[in-house]
């Protein structure tokens, strides 16, 4: 492909996506369906803008799936897994086993040999993480019971892909890998050596991830250049994919592992938000090329066959899911939604079809039809859900008394996020933590982040002015955002971002001096704290004490000063544009304060008497 045609391809793909996806979204069909339709439209059977390279493109775009697995790996914190264990193993595990068994039986009944039948069963048991998670997120259903159940099942399926990839070679009828498909470096090695190499590479990835990546990221982070960090994130994913490819293991497995290893690191959210746009685009490209490579004529030749298979699969999967949902006591309305949402076949099937073709498990004829069926089943999902919502769900919702839907399954997000953990944020964080308030910390200093992590703080590396980062750190569940960045411009950017997109989150902000405090007030922040104010006055109080003032009197003087300073701050704020008036009022207020203080300290004729000094001399 030369340069010009590359750009023309890009032009076609991007244009079609930009036109079709928003329309699909408008219609409530979800972006995945949009991409699929756009793919079909530009594909060889409608407009033919893109042709035979659809399949090549698919291989490239599979990288989107790889990145998605990396992102899922990043999500996998151990405590979350632990919380979801029953749903994951029970719901997820049983779903795969039962669906696989039933599908395999059907296939066997239709004349397949048992090995291909089992392969088909495994492929069909998977659902589409991309479609379902996207739909759940777009509709804000992640926190509902059905959302949680769906998330658990999808998570289990995504993890199950890895053993499935490992099982497939054993299902190969020929027992001979077609060499044209696999150029693995270790092909020539005997079986045990292969296993050994694969194992050592996997352990290598885990070790490197655990001990080498963090310091490297730290060094990169210190460079302060965001591009370098993004580049490193991409490099990491690509490198793992290639390495895994080289030893003949799925790239998805490798990056997933990489993600899991890094899930506990402080760079998690920064990595996530760096990968996010690429992941999104490549997944889009993936669905576009699935659409483009769909053999429309095959579908047109035997529409009844395709539709029969599609509805057969959807019905079977939904039934199994519904049964399990019933066993796991999902309320009826939620259970129906859950069953329908996961009833399609997932994007991994495309990967697995390709894999099984290479292994000679399934013949091309079958695969062509099944790819079409899978695509149709995916395309139908948003339609089914839309229909369900418009009809049965609304009806059921009014009938079924609302139970507690937000079970404590999902990880609880912290109510306070502290952005910037310098000397100021640090004190605040310690205070809040010692009072049992869970906090999430974002900071752009890699050393500090590392150190805090050792103290057991939930702390992430990243630039808090980026909304995506804040969001992946759980901004939407936050009640209070503490803006404590040292740089006033960054501070302003952070506050503007948050108050614009999340007006309900209370912002408490640190200011360096009075001028900065005015700026914050102008931005509408109502809780402003000047960094050195309290400490300085506290120190002043102690100086008074050291000079012989009684402790309680000094304490009163401190409080009086702070109160007066507060009042003056708001008064002076109104006048800050007019320097002359500002100075005049400031001077006047200072004089007033001095007089008040002297009176209180008993050092002047008592113009305003202290009530207690009245009573007793």
């Amino acid at each position: 492909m030369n340069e010009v045609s590359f750009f023309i391809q890009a032009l076609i793909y991007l244009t079609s996506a930009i036109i079709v996806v928003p329309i699909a979204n408008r219609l409530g069909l979800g972006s995945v369906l949009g991409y699929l339709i756009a793919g079909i439209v530009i594909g060889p059977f409608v407009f033919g803008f893109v042709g035979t390279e659809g399949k090549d493109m698919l291989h490239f775009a599979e990288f989107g799936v790889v990145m998605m697995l990396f992102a899922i790996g990043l999500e996998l914190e151990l405590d979350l897994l632990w919380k979801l264990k029953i749903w994951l193993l029970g719901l997820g595990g049983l779903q795969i086993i039962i669906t696989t068994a039933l599908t395999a039986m059907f296939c066997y009944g239709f004349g397949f040999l048992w090995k291909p039948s089992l392969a088909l069963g495994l492929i069909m048991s998977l659902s589409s993480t991309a479609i379902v998670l996207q739909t759940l997120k777009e509709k804000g259903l992640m926190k509902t019971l059905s959302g949680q159940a769906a998330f658990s099942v999808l998570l289990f399926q995504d993890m199950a892909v890895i053993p499935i990839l490992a099982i497939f070679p054993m299902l190969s009828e020929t027992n001979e890998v077609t060499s044209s498909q696999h150029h693995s470096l270790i092909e020539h090695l005997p079986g045990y050596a292969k296993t050994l190499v694969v194992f050592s590479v996997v352990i290598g990835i885990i070790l490197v991830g655990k001990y080498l990546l963090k310091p490297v990221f730290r060094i990169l982070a210190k460079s302060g250049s965001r591009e370098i960090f993004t580049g490193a994130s991409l490099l990491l994913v690509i490198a793992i994919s290639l390495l895994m490819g080289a030893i003949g293991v799925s790239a998805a497995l490798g990056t997933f592992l990489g993600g899991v290893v890094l899930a506990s690191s402080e760079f998690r959210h920064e990595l996530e938000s760096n990968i996010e746009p690429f992941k999104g685009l490549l997944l889009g490209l993936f669905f576009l090329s699935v659409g483009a490579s769909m053999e429309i004529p095959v579908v047109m030749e035997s529409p009844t066959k395709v539709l029969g298979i599609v509805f057969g699969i959807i019905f079977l999967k939904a039934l199994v899911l519904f049964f399990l949902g019933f066993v796991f006591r999902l309320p009826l309305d939620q259970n129906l939604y859950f069953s329908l949402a996961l009833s399609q076949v997932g994007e991994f099937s495309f990967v697995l079809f390709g894999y099984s073709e290479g292994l000679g498990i399934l013949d091309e004829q079958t695969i062509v039809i099944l790819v079409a069926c899978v695509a149709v089943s995916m395309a139908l999902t948003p339609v089914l859900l839309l229909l369900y919502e418009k009809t049965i769900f609304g009806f059921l919702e009014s009938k079924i008394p609302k139970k507690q839907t937000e079970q404590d399954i999902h990880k609880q997000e912290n109510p306070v996020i502290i952005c910037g953990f310098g000397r100021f944020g640090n004190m605040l964080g310690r205070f809040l933590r010692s009072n049992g308030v869970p906090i999430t910390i974002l900071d752009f200093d890699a050393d500090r982040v590392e150190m805090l992590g050792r103290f057991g703080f939930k702390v992430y590396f990243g630039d808090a002015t980026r909304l995506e980062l804040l969001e992946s750190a759980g901004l939407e569940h936050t009640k209070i955002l503490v803006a404590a960045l040292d740089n006033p411009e960054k501070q302003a950017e952070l506050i503007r971002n948050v108050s614009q997109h999340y007006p309900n989150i209370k912002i408490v902000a640190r200011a360096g001096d009075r001028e900065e405090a005015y700026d914050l007030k102008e931005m509408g922040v109502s809780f402003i704290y000047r960094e050195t104010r309290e400490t300085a006055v506290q120190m002043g109080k102690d100086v008074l004490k050291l000079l012989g003032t009684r402790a309680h009197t000094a304490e009163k003087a401190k409080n009086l000063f702070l109160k007066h300073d507060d009042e003056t701050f708001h008064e002076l704020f109104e006048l800050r544009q007019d320097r002359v008036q500002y100075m005049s009022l400031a001077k006047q207020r200072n004089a007033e304060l001095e007089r008040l203080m002297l009176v209180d300290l008993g050092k002047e004729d008592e113009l305003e008497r202290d009530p207690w000094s009245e009573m007793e001399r």
Partner: protein
Amino acid sequence: MPKILILLVHPTLEKSKANQLLLDSLPVSENITLHDLYEEYPNFSINVKAEQNLITNHQIIIFQHPLYWYSCPPLMKLWMDLVLEDGWAYGTNGSHLSGKKWIQVITTGGSKDAYSKHGFHGYETEEFLLPFRRTAELCQMDYLPPFLVQGTFQLTELDLQKESNRYSMFVNQLLGESNE
């Protein structure tokens, strides 16, 4: 020799000549502990355990305070509320104070005449102190009549001198009395 704890409770001691003179006239003795509550707890966050330990080590507890609105300054009331705990000062097992002496050293702006049946306030000073007396009794303490310095608004330098001599003798007597 008994040990005396003087709990000084005065929010604006620096402005009170009378109280300063009283303090100055205290005899020098290692058996007297002066504990300035407003100096110790300017934010009113009283360390209850420390206060209780302090009392445990003394036999005579003197509260030296001005009379505010026929009662004590707020920190002293808070001190009573917090330190005189149920189960420690009174109630079941609350016998840590039993047998100790409770004495108030009180300065009043008004004169002795003003604090009398036919005076401005209409009652004796002692009558206003009923809540304190009852508190001491409940804690099984020995409630002694208060040492009063009255009419501080009118007292002359000489009068004040006399009063502080009287105070000095009073404390000395307390030190010696239980010695026998």
